[in-house]
């Protein structure tokens, strides 16, 4: 097996691993929001409420009351 063949196999395996990680990330995002552990959508408000004295949003954790509701 020469270096070119090795490179090709390395690329193939890297691709497969990265694809699996990417799909796992998709599942993680949607599952954590469904379980009420995260609320990614509220991060979208960072662009809208961007005054220097506005209250920071800070985290993708949902509001405490929403957490309660989802239990």
């Amino acid at each position: 097996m020469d270096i070119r063949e090795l490179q090709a196999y390395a690329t193939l395996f890297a691709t497969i691993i990265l694809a699996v990680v990417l799909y796992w990330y998709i599942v993680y995002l949607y599952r954590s929001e469904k379980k009420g552990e995260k609320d990614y959508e509220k991060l979208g408000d960072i662009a809208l409420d961007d005054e220097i004295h506005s209250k920071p949003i800070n985290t993708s954790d949902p509001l405490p009351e929403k957490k309660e509701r989802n239990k």
Partner: protein
Amino acid sequence: MQSNAALEYDYTVAKLFTYTTIVFGLVGMLIGTLIAAQMAFPELNYLLGEYGTFSRLRPLHTNVVIYGFMLSGIWATGYYFMQRVLKVSMAESKLAMFLGKFHFVVYLVIATGMVVSLFMGITTTKEYAQMEWPLDILVVVVWVTWGLWMFTLIGIRREKALYISVWYYIATFLGVAMLYLFNNMEVPTYFASGGVGAITHSVSMYAGTNDAMVQWWWGHNAVAFVFTVPIVGMIYYFLPKESGQAVYSYKLSLLSFWGLMFVYLWAGGHHLLWSTVPDWVQTMASIFSVILILPSWGSAINMLLTMKGEWNQLTENPIIKFLILASTFYMLSTLEGPIQAVKSVNAIAHFTDWIPGHVHDGVLGWVAFMVFSGLYHMAPRIFKREIYSKSLIEAQFWIQTTAVVLYFTSMWIAGITQGMMWRAVDEYGNLMYSFIDTVTVLHPYYAIRALAGVLFMIGLVMFAYNMIMTMAASKKLTEEPQFRSPMA
């Protein structure tokens, strides 16, 4: 970091980059229009002796629009919105302010050096990496300074969550840093040879096919990390802010981000299809180019859906028109690119005018439109005046949209005609056409492209005039607008 009630965002550096965006836009696109006209009317090559030939001006055009206009626009908008989404002012950190200003000064030195050296014909001849080694070293200084500024600001931020646009700007910084270093590994021949030849001259450290692969790994990722990644970052901030609508799906923006990062780096080999690079590299580049449609369209569709229920703004606000058409051109361009990267299509498309056609529906329709809309949105906030003329923006929009459509349609026809004529054989297998036959056939399309260049340039002059009048003569604002930008 200090805290006081009168604290405001500091737009000093954003303003400086706004000025260079306008100046480099005018210079770069004027040269572009001239060389488009030279393709149709070759006698225009002899206006300025050696300094006016197509071969001298073409790299000047690409470098000035990419590293002058586009990078200035990316930095003008970056120095504006990064403060806002991180909720921290540059005025709060002397280091951030110093880095920002130092960044601008070194950038201006490089940009001036780039224009002068390329005019003089000093070039490495590597596409989109033509600057010679002394300037290359300064580019590293400027890039590192920008990165330090960005991470300084991130380090003192109040908003702990990094908005998606910041992710895209960080990716721009890291992606270009890595690619740039590898592609610009070069040997200054004067020093290597003990004093022979020009001091500015260098040769690449790679040879032959390896050099080509590294070159296009960089070349295509210059498209990725300069034409695409920061521009997507811009639209994720400016469209929601101008429309008052939060991004349709933040999760989709995260997925598209990682998808784009994962896929884009592998696609550069599609510039070398049917060449001496290994087959598997070509096939991989083709496949990844096609997959690239998914993250690209993910972002673009996310932007269109952000306007859900608010489409009336499209008729009322010309900045929204620019933003929406920009994301539409992004979709067109990111569908067209993968089509060209399919090996059988590439056999016809490669080396033809379809390629610059594809590039320009992306850079004019997507990148330039985003830069215009970003700066229009910023103008009332950084100059504290309303935009000078709404009707000028409307007119600019329609003139430039016509220009882009004329550009890419003429180049589609020209490119496919060219590709088909080059390959056409008679019943005995002899080539049917000589090169000059194709030139004759293509003349009308080259003339249409030159007209498109003139129209786009007219729109750009309107933009520059509107911006200058906004800075100098427009009505002062007492309060910063929250969403929609005020215009007369």
